[in-house]
């Protein structure tokens, strides 16, 4: 076995070590913890590259999945009682490893600039490293259990980072919301794990034929049916998928993701755009064999994959329509993320692993780029997030503007030159060919149109026109950030937006290049990525494909054009001017702006029920159990009184007397010590006689 396979654990171990170390150093050692975190990430990145190279080399072998398993603990006798953990190196792992460590490294570097003035800088990097360790753990693990542990750790890190500015009540609430909402999915996920373990007897994915994703176990599961005529494999798959829905913000568990934008922007970029939210997609890809397995001869798609496809399609268009009416720059991106995750799910459900994963990878790059660009804008505009108060920023922040534009084009799916076009097209193509229904395809096309539209709207409001922010304020932020001034970045007025430091723009540029270049690895002409991940049905530029491309290009241009026409042609002048879309019939804009009232719906139903139930429990507790407890306490007090009396009158009295006797004994003993040496010597003689007699008589018995 190759060294890198055996030692793949080093990849998550490095950031974990960094997290542990920087948790121990004092808060003021900022430089140490930052360089430690970045260094560990670069180390992990190099190892990942090695793993990737190994996977490339090894690809095409009969068994492309190399695993390393070990016995973790023995909880019952026999082979069945050994719980095994392990890691796996296959193309899926390799691709994800490189993506996460690369983007992670860039975001870590970016964070040194973004968080430069934060008091809890050290803690921030501790959490970031912890997150990176857990995320890499998810990717390499070959056991659903190990994956679940890392999954929960990722959730914890996400919670800590969303609530990083915990003194803001909204941040604290958002952290809680994210944790609880994903927990709902995790419960189902865990049920699925249990069921799977019960069925397969192992949680290892691949174990030389004995793993739960391998033929034997899958066949066993697909032949049994359970409620509603579902195959067991499909039922387990759906349970696991619900876990993925929680993490990846799929409708109806998407509510936490937009709120999670309360965290620092690098966190949003790393966790809530590029990596963690993609973990759900990754999970579905990982258990894809379980979801896709069907009886021989059955032509229909499995119920699990149908569920994935439908949920993904609905989420894609649903979230995109909300994004149209948002005004917070990060929230727009958050809903866009939800929508894009929906695309990935749809791709997985209709086209298989390669289609979904391709979009995951390209999206990770351009969405991280967009978030970091947004962070740069926010940083430059003195923590302003409302796009109505921006405008004309392209003049102040040229680097940010250009890179942001690249990200926006990629996200919108601008033809040919941008990676998003190719990956999105692959999904639409897969949906078009889906045997169950064409509706997901139409939803996807509608989503693509909306995506192009809302991104154009955002671009126009933020970067075009002229600056609408307040200009005549005291120069509070510049006083706080001497770094920026020292760098000599051209700043007009004291309060004008300013370009961000080099540590922030450099990652943007690198990501922008990737956002363009990555498309080249998965075009229909040269579907390298797809074949690397194991899908071999590349068709080239057939008539079908080209027709579809033209359609989607037209749709994208329609979106871009409408956006430009509505927002670019005539810029709004004041902040309070109503949005153009408010003229839409039936109050549609209000629906979008209020996110279809889903939050309110949950507020009215689930949360209200929960509160009511809590009150019921409290009442039972007070009225019924309270009395029992009260009785018990009276009983205890009475018992205490009795034992107190016993203590005072029996034990203490006895002890006091005992002590007195001990003291008296001591006095008696020391009276032996008369000080007369004659008596001392006599004692020796007496002792001799007594001891001899004692022995002789004692021995005679």
């Amino acid at each position, binding site marked *: 076995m190759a060294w890198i396979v055996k030692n793949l654990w080093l990849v998550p171990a490095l950031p974990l070590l960094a997290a542990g170390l920087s948790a121990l150093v004092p808060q003021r050692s900022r430089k140490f913890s930052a360089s430690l975190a970045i260094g560990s990430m670069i180390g992990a990145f190099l190892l990942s590259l090695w793993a990737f190279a190994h996977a490339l080399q090894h690809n095409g072998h009969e068994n492309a999945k190399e695993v390393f398993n070990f016995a973790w603990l023995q909880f019952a006798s026999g082979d069945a009682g050994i719980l095994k953990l392990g890691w796996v190196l296959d193309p899926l792992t390799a691709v994800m490893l490189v993506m996460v460590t690369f983007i992670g490294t860039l975001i870590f570097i970016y964070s040194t600039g973004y968080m430069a003035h934060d008091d809890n800088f050290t803690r921030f990097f501790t959490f970031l490293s912890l997150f990176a360790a857990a995320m890499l753990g998810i990717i390499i693990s070959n056991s659903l259990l190990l994956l679940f542990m890392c999954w929960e750790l990722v959730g914890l890190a996400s919670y800590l980072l969303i609530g990083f500015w915990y003194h803001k009540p909204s941040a604290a609430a958002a952290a809680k919301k994210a944790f609880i909402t994903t927990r709902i999915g995790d419960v189902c996920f865990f049920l699925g794990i249990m069921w799977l373990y019960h069925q397969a007897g192992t949680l290892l994915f691949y174990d030389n034929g004995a793993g739960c994703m391998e033929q034997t176990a899958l066949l066993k599961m697909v032949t049994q049916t359970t409620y509603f005529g579902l195959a067991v494999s499909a039922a387990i798959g759906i349970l696991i998928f619900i876990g993925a829905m929680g993490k990846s913000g799929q409708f109806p568990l998407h509510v936490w993701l937009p709120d999670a934008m309360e965290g620092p922007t690098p966190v949003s970029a790393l966790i809530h755009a590029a990596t963690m939210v993609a973990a759900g997609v990754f999970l579905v890809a990982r258990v894809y064999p379980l979801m896709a397995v069907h009886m021989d001869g059955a032509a229909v798609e499995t119920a699990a994959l149908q569920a994935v496809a439908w949920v993904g399609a609905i989420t894609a268009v649903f979230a995109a329509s909300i994004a149209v009416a948002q005004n917070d720059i990060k929230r727009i991106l958050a809903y866009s993320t939800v929508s894009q995750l929906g695309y990935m799910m749809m791709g997985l459900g209709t086209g298989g692993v390669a289609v979904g994963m391709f979009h995951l990878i390209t999206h990770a790059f351009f969405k991280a780029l967009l978030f970091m660009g947004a962070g740069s804008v926010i940083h430059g505009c003195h923590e302003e997030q409302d796009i109505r108060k921006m405008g004309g920023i392209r003049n102040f922040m040229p680097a940010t503007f250009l890179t942001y534009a690249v990200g926006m084009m990629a996200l919108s799916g601008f033809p040919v030159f941008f990676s998003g076009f190719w990956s999105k097209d692959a999904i639409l193509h897969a949906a078009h060919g889906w045997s169950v229904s064409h509706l997901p395809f139409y939803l996807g096309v509608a989503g693509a149109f909306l995506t192009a539209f809302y991104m154009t709207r955002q671009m126009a409001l933020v970067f075009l026109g002229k600056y609408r922010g307040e200009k005549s304020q005291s120069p509070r932020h510049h006083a706080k950030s001497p770094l920026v001034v020292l760098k000599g970045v051209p700043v007009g007025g004291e309060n004008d937006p300013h370009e961000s430091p080099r540590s922030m723009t450099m990652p943007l540029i690198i990501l922008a290049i990737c956002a363009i270049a990555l498309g080249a690895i998965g075009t229909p002409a040269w579907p390298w990525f797809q074949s690397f991940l194991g899908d071999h049905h590349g068709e080239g530029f057939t008539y079908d494909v080209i027709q579809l491309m033209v359609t989607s290009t037209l749709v994208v241009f329609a979106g871009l054009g409408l956006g430009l026409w509505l927002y670019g042609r005539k810029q709004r002048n004041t902040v309070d001017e109503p949005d153009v879309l408010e003229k839409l019939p039936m109050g549609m804009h209000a629906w979008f702006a209020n996110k279809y009232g889903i939050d309110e719906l949950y507020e009215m139903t689930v949360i209200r029920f929960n509160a009511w139930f809590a009150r019921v429990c409290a009442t039972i507790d007070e009225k019924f159990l309270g009395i029992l407890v009260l009785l018990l306490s009276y009983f205890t007090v009475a018992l205490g009184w009795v034992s107190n009396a016993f203590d005072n009158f029996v034990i203490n009295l006895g002890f006091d007397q005992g002590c007195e006797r001990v003291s008296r004994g001591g006095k008696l003993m020391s009276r032996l010590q008369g000080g007369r040496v004659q008596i001392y010597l006599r004692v020796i003689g007496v002792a001799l006689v007594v001891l001899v007699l004692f022995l002789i008589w*004692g021995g005679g018995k």
Partner: protein
Amino acid sequence: MNYLELLKLFAPETIVVVTALVVLAVDLTSMRELETRLRFSIGGMIASVGCAAAILGILVIPERANTVGGMMAVSPLTQHVKICLLALTVFTVLISIEAKFTSHVGEYLGLILLATVGMMFLVSAQDVLMVFVSLELTSLSLYTLTAFNKRNIKSAEAALKYFLFGGMAAAFMLFGLSLIYGLTGSTNLHAIATALAGKGLDPLLVVAIVMTVIGFGFKVAAVPFHLWAPDAYEGAPTPSAAFIASGSKLASFFIFAKIMMIGFAGAEGSAAFRSFVAGWTPVIAAVAALSMILGNLAAIVQRSVKRLLAYSAIAHAGYMLLGLMANSSEIYLSLIYYATTYGLATIGAFGVVALVENSMGDDKLSSFVGFSKRAPVAAFAMMIFLLSLAGIPPLAGFFGKFFLFAAVLKPGASSLGLLWLVVLAIATSAVSFYYYLKVLKQIYVVNGTDRKDATNVSWFAQVVLLVMAILVILLGCFPNLLVGGLQACLASSG
């Protein structure tokens, strides 16, 4: 074996003898005119260096030998005990450097070293004659050390009592040993054991055993042969008392165990509850039980801390005698650990008492009031020493008791018969908390007159006390520092 080899084998002892002579000569010739404190410092340094050289010598000479027709033996075990002895001697010397009771520095230090030589020979002895001679060398030096405070009448009285009692005990022991010679025709321990094997317990042997026990009972201050101890400890100069309680005790217990276990190997009998068989173990059991009870009870009512420590020494002798009951070669391990750590804590405690005596004039409990404010470092060290003597984990005293009791209960089926002794030991050591804490209460809790300037502790004394306190803690936390080496010794000696 020629004399050169003999000299090489006993080079450590020779080094100590030479050191004693050097100290004496240097003091008599070149330091007459100097201040006492300075003489003590120089002499103490020479003595310490000599002891250190002896330890070094022990580490380099061959590990195992039998000489002079089996009279003396050197084995890893004896070497280990000798190292402990020398270490205790060094600490005794270090705490006597502050002493003011005498101006005869050379003689004082020389006698300590000579007593140490006696103990070292005692440890090596394999022959009852050799045992007796070494014992006398030790005892005579200790009598003189007790009498050393010539300005104090109590010192002379204590020494006289110690001497008379010791002489009497030595006479009994010599009588007992000659009876044994009469019975077996040999003075070598192994030969005695062979001759006694299978003979049963005739009355003459019983008398001989009891008389031997009396001799050693005196040395280790076990009841009822303890009567000299409180007077001697109280009257003697404090460093002398510390030395009697520490080094002398370690050596005596080691040879006591050796004679009983090797010499009287066939006549141990049994002290097990309800299955009593005559032999030497029941005698020792009786002596041990009496020591534990009397030592701990009598300590409660003492007003003088030195007397209190004397009774505590008697009680500890009881615990250590308990170890002899185990009657197996592993007991050496527990015994040496116990005696060494006990000696360390005792020397430390006496060192603190000496400080109080120097400043307050006496060692009454009331003189310790507010000591923690006057000398916080010394008070802290005293707390460690006393808590270790009381047996509080994680200090060395706790593990000493633990190993000892565990060793007594360990071997075989008959072992639980000794449970009554262990229960007694635990009960009496609970009593002992009372008087140790009484001292600590005076030091830390009782508010007395503010005489902050009254105690001026030199930095040297503080360092010495602190080192000992740290050793007590370290040996408690890592018993293997001491026991690990011993274990290896035992394993190699079979």
